[in-house]
């Protein structure tokens, strides 16, 4: 196993064609510690898969170097890299049995038959598929097929890292949770470096120790799930993570007070914002930290109420800006409502980037 380092990696798919560089992945530096569980989170088309394919060698980056344990492997082929990758859609070798599918990567690497047999038996047990070992892979359902795809990575003894490219997309919702738990267990047991690409925040937050949020070909934040929730470094992260996402309101700064459309919010303590330019300021606050009170706070119009079970989401409008509020059970919507923000949970953004916390 190895740590993976990406040095000034960038990629554009139309390199050398036409004019102008259209980066699918903007230049970035990132290291992945040996044995870490990472999630790459971001909307479709933000460069997650590109980044993954660069690590596995399916794609050669147009700029930068890939290092495994400080060794430059940028020019090595996928076959030489000892990386396992599980794709969005399960890939199985239809005509081979489950056991033969698992043996396939080992046979290609010319391992001895008794070693192969032992490894396959181990992985079958790990995946709980002993009973299906001799079935043809074609007849299996999607989640078993995806398990085999995963198993072909696990069966190898030389694997430095396992990459997952939205592996649970085609899996039934009730099995997703189960498979994710199994993955987590496998990670704890074998300590492979795992990088898990997803656009589903629940998946990312439950799977990984560290979540990397990508947006428009760049990494916008790396952090623990808690950091991403409490202090999103970019308004995109705030909006993307959480359900509903963070409320973002344009604001101004007057001393230590935040002014939202003429409504003053006392922060209670000064914030450090670069004073030269106070334009493009925005206030970010999680719906969880907004309260509704009668006859005080920032007046809003309630436009909708959704009961999602454990809490109630109140949709409101404030000068054409949507503001969501989460009410705990038992709390009522007062007449003539106003918004009260919890001062310590307010984040300040300038040009979408975090500049101060409450």
């Amino acid at each position, binding site marked *: 196993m190895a740590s993976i380092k990406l040095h000034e990696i960038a990629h554009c798919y139309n390199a050398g064609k036409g004019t102008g560089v259209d980066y699918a992945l903007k230049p970035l530096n990132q290291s992945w510690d040996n044995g870490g569980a990472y999630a790459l989170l971001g909307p479709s088309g933000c460069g997650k898969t590109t980044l993954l394919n660069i690590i596995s060698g399916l794609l050669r980056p147009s700029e930068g170097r890939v290092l495994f344990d400080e060794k430059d492997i940028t020019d090595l082929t996928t076959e030489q890299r000892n990386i396992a*990758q599980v*794709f969005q859609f399960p*890939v199985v*070798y*239809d005509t081979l049995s489950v056991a033969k599918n698992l043996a396939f990567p080992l046979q*290609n690497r010319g391992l001895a038959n008794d070693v192969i047999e032992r490894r396959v038996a181990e992985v079958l047990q790990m995946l709980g598929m002993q009973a*299906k070992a001799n*079935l*043809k892979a074609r007849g299996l359902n999607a989640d078993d097929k995806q398990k085999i795809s995963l198993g072909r990575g696990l069966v190898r003894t030389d694997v430095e890292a396992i990459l997952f490219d939205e592996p649970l997309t085609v899996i039934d919702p009730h099995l997703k949770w189960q498979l994710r738990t199994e993955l987590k267990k496998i990670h704890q047991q074998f300590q492979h470096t795992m990088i898990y690409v997803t656009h589903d925040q629940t998946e990312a937050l439950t799977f990984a120790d560290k979540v990397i949020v990508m947006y428009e070909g760049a990494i916008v934040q790396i952090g623990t799930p808690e950091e991403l929730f409490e202090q999103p470094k970019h308004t995109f992260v705030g909006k993307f993570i959480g359900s509903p996402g963070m409320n973002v309101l344009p604001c101004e700064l007057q001393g230590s007070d935040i002014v939202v459309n003429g409504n003053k919010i006392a922060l209670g303590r000064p914030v450090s914002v670069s004073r030269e330019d106070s334009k493009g300021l925005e206030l970010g606050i999680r719906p969880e930290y907004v309260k509704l009170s009668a006859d005080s706070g920032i007046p809003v119009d309630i436009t909708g109420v959704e009961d999602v079970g454990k809490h109630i989401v109140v949709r409101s409008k404030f000068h054409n800006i949507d503001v969501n509020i989460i009410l705990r059970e038992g709390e009522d919507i007062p007449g003539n409502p106003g918004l009260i923000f919890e001062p310590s949970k307010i984040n300040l953004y300038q040009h979408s980037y975090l500049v101060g916390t409450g």
Partner: protein
Amino acid sequence: MKPLNNKAWFMVLPVLVLVAFSAIIPLMTVVNYSVQDTFGNNEFFWVGTEWFQELLTSERFHNALQRTFLFSGLVLLIEIPLGIFIALAMPKRGIGVSICLVLMALPLLIPWNVVGTIWQVFGRVDIGLLGHGLAELGIDYNYTQDIFDAWLTLIVMDVWHWTSLVVLLCYSGLVAIPEVYYQAARIDGASRWAVFRYIQLPKIKRVLLIAVLLRFMDSFMIYTEPFVVTGGGPGNATTFLSIDLVQMAVGQFDLGPAAAMSLVYFLIILLVCWVFYTIMTSYDNDEIGQGRQPNA
């Protein structure tokens, strides 16, 4: 018990009438001929199974049948692997795709008798590019006199004419394979052969079945090209079943034996196609059967 509703029969009646006129009635006419004898003048005599008995013991029929099987077998053995190979070598994207597809489709657009004429002239020793060229090189080649040369000409001609069909079918199967399979194969360290054996071949199996059936049926019924090129000669060396049949029916006007032969010919094609189909799909059924086992 549900009450039977026979109205549905009226719904299929138009199709039934159409099929009757286009297939059943002509076929029955042949069946009718096959059990009768005629001396012209539209007079027929009942002979029972005599023509069939005669046919099955006829050396002429057996020889023609063997020649036809040999021809079909050789054609399949060459065209199927060659077709797969060319399809694999064809580009998957870019301008080359259109060029290759057009080039591949060209031989298929030429009418059979024109193909025959082209090769008949091409192979002639006196004026043909191929025949004369070979003669100049000192190779003794003459498809009108040498049995081996005649067969070689016909087989090369058929390969030239019909390999494209196999190529196009296989190519359509190959381009339908998602890129992710190749990526997974690279992750698994698969060799080129393993990729072909475990990804490409299984994925093109269905179109390959169609290719094999079409090429078998077509080559087994081949008539026009050998008729134009060799006329069944030298001697009877390239007299396939179809040529023999036409000689019997049109040349000798033996309607009864010709009808019996047509039926046997038809049944052989049907039987062989069924065998091919069963062999090539038995693997699938086996898999589906296993897949349906209850989850253990």
